[in-house]
């Protein structure tokens, strides 16, 4: 009888410890397991409403898409459709965005986001995606490219060129001009040739200039 009791006590302690550990582990917020089934919803308050949601399927339209394609021959209300030909690019695309520290910072950010996979941080090509088998683009800092007009570079970004596709859907017109300005910074070794408006503070000046030169230096 006495031994029996001791046994019972031992196993209940072990059970209790395991039980506690299980719940502490589960509730401490660490993922113990992952699941392929959608989270359980016992009471669907108003969680799933019958409305059109971005990028969701819709049974209302014949093609099943809730996000509508633009109607043919129309442009978005605040947007433009780029339809300048390469021959007109030099004269029709006029860069009217002033060169300021903000514009260059934006241009750097967008270039690093959209272009570095192929053109690399310094614009010389051989980015990480190119190393995995994409066509190597020509250097953006070679003399030929320095001689391109702003409008020509704008054209390549907006309409694409051969295997490089258009980035008009990813970059607004303003962003594209910012990128063009930043390419000039890369070509000029870290400063913009037309940096007229003096940066507001000494610190601003340093950060933009340093950012450019640091990348250029790291490539060599």
């Amino acid at each position: 009888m006495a031994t029996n009791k001791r046994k019972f006590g031992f196993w209940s302690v072990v059970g209790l410890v395991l039980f506690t550990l299980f719940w502490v582990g589960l509730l401490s917020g660490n993922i113990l397991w992952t699941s392929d089934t959608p989270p359980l919803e016992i009471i669907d308050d108003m969680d799933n409403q019958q409305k059109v949601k971005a990028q969701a399927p819709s049974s209302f339209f014949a093609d099943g898409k809730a996000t509508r394609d633009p109607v043919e021959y129309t442009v978005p209300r605040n947007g433009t459709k780029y339809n300048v030909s390469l021959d007109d690019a030099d004269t029709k695309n006029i860069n009217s965005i002033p060169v300021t520290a903000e514009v260059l910072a934006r241009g750097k950010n967008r270039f690093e986001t959209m272009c570095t996979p192929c053109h690399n941080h310094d614009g010389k090509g051989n980015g990480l995606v190119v190393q995995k088998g994409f066509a190597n683009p020509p250097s953006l800092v070679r003399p030929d490219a320095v001689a391109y007009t702003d409008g020509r570079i704008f054209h390549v970004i907006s309409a694409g060129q051969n295997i490089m596709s258009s980035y008009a859907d990813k970059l607004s017109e303003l962003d594209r001009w910012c990128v063009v300005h930043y390419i000039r910074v890369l070509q000029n070794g870290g400063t913009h040739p037309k940096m007229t408006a003096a940066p507001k503070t000494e610190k601003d000046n340093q950060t933009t200039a340093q950012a450019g030169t640091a990348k250029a230096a790291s490539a060599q």
Partner: protein
Amino acid sequence: MFTAKTNQRSKTTILAGLALLGFISIVSYFGFDNAVTDVGYRPEQPIPFSHKLHAGELEIKCMYCHTSVEKSKHSTVPATSTCMNCHVAVKAESPKIAKIKESWETGKPLEWRKVHKLPDYVNFSHARHIRARVDCASCHGEVEKMGVVTQMKPLSMGWCLDCHRNPQANVVPAREISGIFTGLDSYEETAKKIKNESPSRGEGKWIPMKDCAIEGAGVYEHEVGKASVAGLVMPKKLALGPENCGACHY
């Protein structure tokens, strides 16, 4: 009247019953809480697309694919054409890419399975958080290390409020891999600023709520930093997130 054995048995039964009741209530209270049910949701996608490869190894910034985060509430999952920017040439013949090519040729969109889902009555905006330089990792974990996207945070109301009340402890400042625009500051400076300057609860101007039955109800209002320069979206200074119901519920 009762034997000792019966006495013992009824005691055990009562104890066992209580334990079972406790177990059931713990399971039903915590077990169905979103912290437990939602976290770890990892649906299999129609294409074995890997963030670990694309964002982690190839260092493609999040915003290359999720372009709309800084402008809209919704963070778009990229269109097929975005994949084809590279996959026209890279691994174009791979069977794993076949479905993308088919979608590209027929115009029929790929049906990715949604991972993170808030109830439809919640008003959440990506743009507002991204413009305040809150990194994706604050809410999605380190996606660039995931082979398959997994939900890491509960997305419950308590979780939103924890951060709104105490951003200092919960915000991961913008990182380079996300491609979030930090204005004139570098990413290191941004991180330092957010650590040093993020407000704590109770700062700001207290605006009492008018005609409210609850005594002492109101909101703190914060100065909103400059948000655009010559049409360019600029990042804002980090403020406290809202706690008033109307901000997150329609």
